[in-house]
Structure formats: structure tokens, C-alpha cells
């Protein structure tokens, strides 16, 4: 149903890996104008929802870390999840991706319930995530990191692994796919390096590229820009936009409002576990409740409203 909206993964490499600012200007935004009719209130309905969360709560001891009443996520758009430290963003992410189980509540992906579905099964359902603390697999080469993401590799079955001929054909395909993705992310020259030798930003790139090997519908990025140097940030932003251009849905957690404004189509604001506001980036920057949530709770917040506040 959704496949027709999405460019084939390998065909979309036209932008090239370098992805300088000039190139990014040209990246197509398939959801432009979709949010014009959406009401900017928490829990608002979207024209084409891919992911829905209803009454999701998670408690740690007496503390309610997450208490989300309703969240609809628009298909094919970049949705930012922002909020002060301790707002429950990462915990909410964990709940959505099966890395933690909610005390109550329902999550649906493409209209199908994914309550209690183990995290590893979500990749098959088209949802993949990255982590706040980048999880590059240090003592695997960059190429092996990439290949790990591939689906349908019969050689990952114990018995079939024993017979090389059962998996070498698929392995060759996977190898080609991995190298093409590496080329797109401008990392071909690092293919045979151990991932542990890469810089923080390069690891972020590997992690994102690796997640694309699963050919996901929904990409969940937990602070993709954290600890990345400014030069690489632009490149990363370009890659995120590229995901949207391919028709994928992106949800990401971020602190830096500049980034959020630059790439997101829709912003969801969390504070103390609840969603306190939703809206377009411009509307959110002007929202008094959001400003209070940030400045009221954390003066040292990285969120910078600049001239907009």
C-alpha cells in the first residue's frame, strides 16, 4: 500500500554522499503542505497516520516517566520529538520500539497493534531505530556493520550457516547493497576499518546507514546530531532529508532547535512525560507553553529560541 510512494532504496542515491548544503536545497519534500490542515494541538489527527500511540504510560517506582495520551505520526514526514532533559523522550522511544514495555497503552504501526511485540521483530515490520549513545559494533568492520542490517540472509540460520553454498549468493547481494549505501554516505574508503576506530560523527553515519540496510518504513533516530561536529552535521541533515525524499517516515529526538527547524515538518513537545504541544516548527517556537516548559524547568537547556522567542 505504501510501497508505491517510496522510491527504491538504491535508486535514490542521486544526491551523492557528500551532501553539501547546496545539494540539500534540491532534496524533494513529498509531504510539503500536508500539515497545513492539521490542528496544532496535542494528539491531533494526521491525514495519513503510520504510527499511533494511545494512553501509553510507564512508571519507575512512584515516578511517571511517560504518560502519553494520544500521538499520531504522519506517514512520510519528519517528526521531531523535543523536550527538556528528563521529559521522557528516550523512554517513550524505548516503549515505541519494544526495548521497554509500557505499563499500559497501545501502539499501532500501519494500523496493526505492536503491543508486546519483541524489539527484534519490529525490524521485520519496517521499523528501525538508532541509539542516543551510538552503538557502532566496535570490533566489526564498517562493512560487516552494514551487512548485519540485511534481511533474509539464510546464512544467519545455524544449520544453513554450515553450508557455504546456502548463503554465499545472498551474501554477494548484501555486499553490493552495503557498498552502495556506503558510497551514498561517502564512506567507501572506510569499509574495512573497525567501526571502533571511527569518530563519533562517523559512527552516527554508520549507524544510520546500517539501519537503512533493513529497508525500513519508519526510521527512529535518537539524538542523531548529538556529539557530531558541525561539518558533519550538515551532511547528516542532508541524509535525513534524503530519507524523507525516499518516502520513509522519520521520527527523531533532538535538543537543538536550529536543527529541528531546519529539517522537521512537525514537532511534538514532551515535558514531564506528557505531550504538551504539537505543531509546525514555526508555531512551536512561538508557543508560550513550550518556552515555559524549557526555561521553567531547565535554564541551562540547549534549546535556543534565538530571535523567535
Amino acid at each position, binding site marked *: 500500500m505504501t510501497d508505491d510512494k517510496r522510491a527504491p532504496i538504491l535508486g535514490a542515491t542521486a544526491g551523492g554522499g557528500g551532501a553539501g548544503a547546496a545539494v540539500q536545497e534540491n532534496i524533494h519534500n513529498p509531504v510539503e503542505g500536508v500539515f497545513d490542515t492539521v490542528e496544532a494541538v496535542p494528539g491531533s489527527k494526521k491525514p495519513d497516520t503510520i504510527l499511533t500511540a494511545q494512553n501509553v504510560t510507564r512508571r519507575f517506582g512512584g515516578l511517571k516517566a511517560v504518560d502519553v495520551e494520544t500521538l499520531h505520526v504522519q506517514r512520510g514526514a519528519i517528526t521531531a520529538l523535543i523536550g527538556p532533559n528528563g521529559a521522557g523522550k528516550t523512554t517513550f522511544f524505548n516503549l515505541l520500539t519494544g*526495548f521497554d514495555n509500557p505499563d499500559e497503552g497501545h501502539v499501532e504501526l500501519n494500523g496493526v497493534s505492536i503491543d508486546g511485540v519483541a524489539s*527484534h521483530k519490529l525490524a521485520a515490520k519496517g521499523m528501525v531505530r*538508532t541509539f542516543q549513545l551510538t*552503538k557502532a559494533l566496535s*570490533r*566489526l568492520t564498517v562493512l560487516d556493520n552494514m551487512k548485519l*542490517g540485511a*534481511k533474509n540472509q539464510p546464512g544467519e*540460520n545455524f544449520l544453513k550457516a554450515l553450508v557455504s553454498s546456502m548463503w554465499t549468493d545472498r551474501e554477494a547481494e548484501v555486499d553490493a547493497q552495503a557498498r552502495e549505501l556506503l558510497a551514498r554516505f561517502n564512506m567507501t574508503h572506510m569499509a574495512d576499518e573497525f567501526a571502533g576506530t571511527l569518530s563519533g560523527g562517523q559512527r552516527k553515519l554508520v549507524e544510520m546507514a546500517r539501519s537503512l540496510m*533493513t529497508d525500513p518504513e519508519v526510521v527512529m533516530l535518537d539524538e542523531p546530531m548529538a556529539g557530531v561536529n558541525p561539518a558533519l552535521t550538515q551532511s547528516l541533515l542532508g541524509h535525513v532529508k534524503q530519507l524523507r525524499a525516499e518516502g520513509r517516515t522519520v521520527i527523531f529526538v533532538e535538543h537543538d532547535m536550529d536543527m529541528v527547524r531546519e529539517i522537521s515538518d512537525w514537532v511534538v513537545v514532551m515535558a514531564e512525560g506528557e505531550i504538551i504541544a504539537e505543531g509546525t516548527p514555526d508555531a512551536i517556537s512561538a508557543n508560550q507553553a513550550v518556552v515555559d516548559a524549557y526555561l521553567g524547568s531547565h535554564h541551562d537547556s540547549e534549546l535556543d529560541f534565538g530571535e523567535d522567542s
Partner: protein
Amino acid sequence: MNWDLIFTQMFSQAFGVNAMVYALAAIGLNIHFGYTGLLNFGQVGFMAAGAYGVAMTVFWLNWNFWLGIGIGVIFCVVLALILGVPTLRLRADYLGITTIAASESIRLFVRWRGNRERTGAAEGINDFADSFFALNVFDKPGNESYQFLFFEYRANDLWVMLVGWIVVAFCVLINWQLIRSPWGRVLKAIREDEDAARSLGKNAYSYKLQALVLGGVIGGFGGMLQVISKQSVQPDTFNPVITFLIWTIVIIGGVGKVWSPVVGSIIYWGLISLMITFMRELIGTGAGPNLDRFLNLSILNVDQLRFVIFGGALMLLMWFRPQGIFGSREEMALDDR
């Protein structure tokens, strides 16, 4: 000082039954810890499961010895499942404590007097492997020794070694094939970061269980060959210190390399018998009384030195060379466990 004896001991031990048995146990542990990152502190439990599988089949059930090999494998698989299903979701250090507790529980259970008819309790089981030695191609009357160059082995040991080293070669081959396959790639990914593997759609739990079973069964083969070679199985030989000896061997060779368990075992047994035989000889010379006076070292406690040395070696290797004595420093720098 009898240098001939010292070197004969060293070379014979380096490739002898012990080196073979511990190479197998270490191949298993290397799959657990080296490739999957499982903190298995109970490898000796798998050796016991294999050993008792064979011995009990003959002693208790009165079945064919060769069937016992299969029963031993089944014991190991069952143990891995009992151990793994509930505990592989636990944190690494909890898994370590659980596995050491399980291996001790096995030892306590088989030596329980209530099991006398099944396991022979504390005295164990003897003479159950006649069928194995009936096929000895090196048979000599009175189990006499063969000698060549610096090697000297009894006829029966030579037969166990022939079979055992073939098993070792086979296990290394399997290990090599699996690790170069995508299956092995998933294991290594789990070792590096389980959550990352899960986020990419790999069922980490299932893979850890598979690794536990595979490494356990290989360890079980080690246990079987050990007790077959002695024609005797006794519960107290399966104490936790053995597990940590296996750890030392894996670390000597370098964690997570296909050849490391074999190389580590040969080096360990060669070096340790070189040192101990040398000490024994030294005690026999004029220096003996002084060693006793100043180091309290005599023929009576020279064997304890073996454990002092390997305990110290385990500490120092884990500290300074966790990548093994042949591993590179760069590799170690990446080790963020």
C-alpha cells in the same frame, strides 16, 4: 638436573591428553565468551554433563558405551537449555554468578549419596570405557609407552589423543565455518552490543541460546574424552577452578580467535609442566634445602605452584593482554567491554 626428562615432560604434556581436553573445553568457552560475550563461569558443568552422560549410560543403564556419547551430548544440550532459557535475559555478571552456581549444583548433586546407584556418588564410576580401548590401534600389552623424539605416551593415551585431536580439528573447522558465516557475524554483533543487534531485527536471545548449546556440547566432548582417558569419573574433579583454568587458556591464545583455544591449551600445558618439572628437578639438587628454608618449597607443595602461577597468569593476562599473547594492541584498544 635431568634436562631430558624436563623436555620430554614439556613436549608430551603440550600435545597430550590434557592439552586436547582443555582445548575442546576452551573452544566451547571461546564461542560463549569470545564470540558471543556470554560470561560463562560454569564451563566445567558442561564437561561434567558430557562425562557423566557416558559413564552413567554404561554404569547405571547398562547400555552400550557408544550410545553413551549420544546421551552425553543430550545432557549438554539439556543443561544449556535449563541454564540458558531463564538466565540469558539477565545482566552479564548475574549470568556469571548463575552459571558458577549451576556448575557447583551439578557437582553436589552427582556426589550425593542418594545417587550412588546412578552416579557412583563421591567415589564416581570406573572402567566404563572398555569398548573404546578395545579399538585401540596402538594397543601394547600392559599399556606400555611409545617414545619418539621428546615425546612419550602410554599406548592407551595415544589412542585417546588420536581420537581427541581429530575431534579438536573437527570442532575448530566447524567453529571457523560458523564464524565466517552470517550466523557468526550476528554472534559478534551481540557481543559488541546486544541492543544494536536487536534493533536490526536479530533475535539476540535465540542466538545466545544457540551459542550456549554449541559451546556447551563442545565442552562436553572435552569432559567425555577426559574421563574416557582415565577410565574414571569423579565428581570433585569438576570443581570451579577448572572453569577458570579454561578461561586462562582462552585468554592466553587471545579471546575470539578460531585457533586461540588450541594454541592456548598447548602453551599452557607445555609451559606449566616445564616449570613444575624444572622445580621438581631443582628441589632434587643441592639447592633443595635452601628452597625449603627460604621459599617453603619442597616436593610436597610444588604442585600447588601450578595453581599459584595460573591464578597470577589469569590476572596479568586479563589486565595487560586481554587480546592474548599474540594479539595486537590496536585490537585491545577497541575492546570496550
